[in-house]
């Protein structure tokens, strides 16, 4: 029998038992919807976690430090010996890092203790410089107010704990000014023998002095969470200001004392630089390139692999859990087709008497099963998507009540749609195996005798 005729006869048979076929298809749809809903939850959570962790700078970041020989860790060298010393982590090195393919940005970490004055009351806290790129990385999602208007804006974003210290009503702080008192480094005149090497340096071998300064900043935003806290980020900063502004303050940092006693070639030397890659998968090659330049590096790339393994297992468990409903639906298909054999026993006998081969009968049942599977799969994907939307809506209503930013925990990628439909058809075909072979084996004489 030709494929077109098989399809027509199968559809006719399904139409003739429309209620039973519809209910069976609905059963498949529920099974597929369960599978799609669970898997899309797993995929959504994985995407969310990956995005958040990636934005945190934990996995797409390489921290670069100056490579030192073991002796230098214990005792600073008495005099500079360029032939033996490691390459300094200065602006030249920074420019070299920026030239490495797939590097998005290179910046130094600026973090220093400060005293904030608001309404005449002093508060101690930590200032952290935030690069302009942080605007789009998700760290400031849900910010109350706005991000910095520009890289050089004299503006500040407060972490909620600091904001609560400053005012009982944190939101009232937006648009207000505060004063930051900090210790500025000022270079001392270099010693005579090194004066020719000292260019635009405030950490030269001549050392530096500390001068108290003040800076007025306008509060533009308040954030609930500590943005991108942790490795390579802006951890423990409660008062966030643009990185350019923070750098221009030349505030004394915790590692300045060490640098003051270390010999340099007269150029500003960074304690460490943060190199951000386009994606976590590119960290390895960037790290290798930087190491080859003679610097020490550190990254958490192995953690991304662990995360991936965790979500693979998580998705597999969700798949198994979601498949249970599909397994029940499979029994429904078997039941429907076995009932169809009983009801159409005589019809099968007639078909065989008219020349239908066993395989024609078998294929007819397979087509009926796969049509139910396909329709159930398509409907199920739709139902699963709706379930995902509904749950997301519910979660976001809850998050809003908790004053938390909205989030999307469900994701239905195109491959999941395809997988669900193909799986529904395959499962239906497997369910049709027994009924189809039983129908094909029917003895036409006995089938024709059946009333």
């Amino acid at each position: 029998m030709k494929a077109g005729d098989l399809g027509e006869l199968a559809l006719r048979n399904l139409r003739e038992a429309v209620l039973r076929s519809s209910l069976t298809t609905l059963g498949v749809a529920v099974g597929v919807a369960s599978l799609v809903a669970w898997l899309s939850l797993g995929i959504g959570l994985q995407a969310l976690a990956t995005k958040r962790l990636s934005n945190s700078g934990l996995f797409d970041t390489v921290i670069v430090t100056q490579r030192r020989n073991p002796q230098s860790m214990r005792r600073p060298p008495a005099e500079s010996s360029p032939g033996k010393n490691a390459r300094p982590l200065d602006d030249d090195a920074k420019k070299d890092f920026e030239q490495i393919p797939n590097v998005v940005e290179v910046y130094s970490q600026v973090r220093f203790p400060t005293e904030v004055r608001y309404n005449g009351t002093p508060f101690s806290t930590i200032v952290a410089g935030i690069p302009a790129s942080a605007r789009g990385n998700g760290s400031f999602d849900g910010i109350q107010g706005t991000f910095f208007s520009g890289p050089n804006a004299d503006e500040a974003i407060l972490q909620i704990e600091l904001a609560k210290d400053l005012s009982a009503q944190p939101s009232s702080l937006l648009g207000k000014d505060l004063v930051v008192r900090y210790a500025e480094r000022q270079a001392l005149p270099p010693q005579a023998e090194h004066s020719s090497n000292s260019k635009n340096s405030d950490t030269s071998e001549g050392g530096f002095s500390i001068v108290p300064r003040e800076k007025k900043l306008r509060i533009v935003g308040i954030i609930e969470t500590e943005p991108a806290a942790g490795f390579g980020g802006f951890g423990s900063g409660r008062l966030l200001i643009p990185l350019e502004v923070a750098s221009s303050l030349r505030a004394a940092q915790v590692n300045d004392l060490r640098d003051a006693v270390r010999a340099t070639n007269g150029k500003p030397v960074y304690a460490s630089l943060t190199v951000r890659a386009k994606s976590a998968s590119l960290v390895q090659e960037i790290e290798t390139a930087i190491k080859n330049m003679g610097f020490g590096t550190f990254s958490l790339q192995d953690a991304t692999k662990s995360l991936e393994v965790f979500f693979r297992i998580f998705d597999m468990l969700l798949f198994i859990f979601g498949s249970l409903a599909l397994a029940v639906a499979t029994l429904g298909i078997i039941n429907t087709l076995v009932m169809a054999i009983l009801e159409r026993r005589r019809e099968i006998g007639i078909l065989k008497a008219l020349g239908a081969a066993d395989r024609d009968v078998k294929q007819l049942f397979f087509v009926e099963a796969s049509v139910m599977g396909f329709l159930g799969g398509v409907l199920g994907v739709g139902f699963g998507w709706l379930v995902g939307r509904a749950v997301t809506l519910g979660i976001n209503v809850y998050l809003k009540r908790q004053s938390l930013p909205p989030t999307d925990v469900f994701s239905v990628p195109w491959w999941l749609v395809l997988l669900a439909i193909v799986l529904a058809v395959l499962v239906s075909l497997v369910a049709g195996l027994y009924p189809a072979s039983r129908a094909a084996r029917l003895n036409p004489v006995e089938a024709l005798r059946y009333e």
Partner: protein
Amino acid sequence: MVTIGNGLAVRAERVSRHYEMGAAVIRAVDDVTLEIRAGEFVALLGSSGSGKSTLLNLMAGLDRPTGGAIFANGRNLSELSSLELARYRSRTVGMVFQSFNLLPRMTLEENVELPLRLAAVDRGERAPRVQEALERVRLEKRLSHRPSELSGGEQQRAALARALVNRPTLLFADEPTGNLDSATGESIMLLLKEIQQKLGMTIVMVTHERPLAERFADRIAALADGKLLTDGVNS
């Protein structure tokens, strides 16, 4: 017309069909040898349980003998695979049943078209062949009617059209008038006779009505208890 030599259309050679029912063995057909010539109208006559329908089913390729051989279309049906037997039923054989066996949810046109679908005949060729078959049984104006909208005689004529649509060489009819009144039954028999004469078809008909067999068949083979009692030309 396809024959198997010496002008024979079907030859049953010491054919048996036994069924095991627990310890008992039912000998539905027992050691029957029968030859049917091409173009012949043969009546298998016998009372209920005589084995005539079983023998017909064996010759039509609907069942397999437990002993002996049946030759048709140049081959031993016992040795054919399931697929080959299905092809034999599709291309060589036409079947008519006592209870018509039309599919109730299909129209007359769809019922008659069904064997063409099963034989994978091209769509373009089907409509004229369905029309031709229905014209032969004078039902060409009832194309879109369902079986329930037809009388018994019309249903049997439709079944006959379905049996003829694949242009078979052998027509097997199992009590074709069994569900009809005598007048309608006679009209069906006249139609069968007409088909035999016009198309030169070989017709094997099962009946328990001797007068009908004597009136229309060229030859009568009488069976009782699965055995062939007499086989002779109908005078």
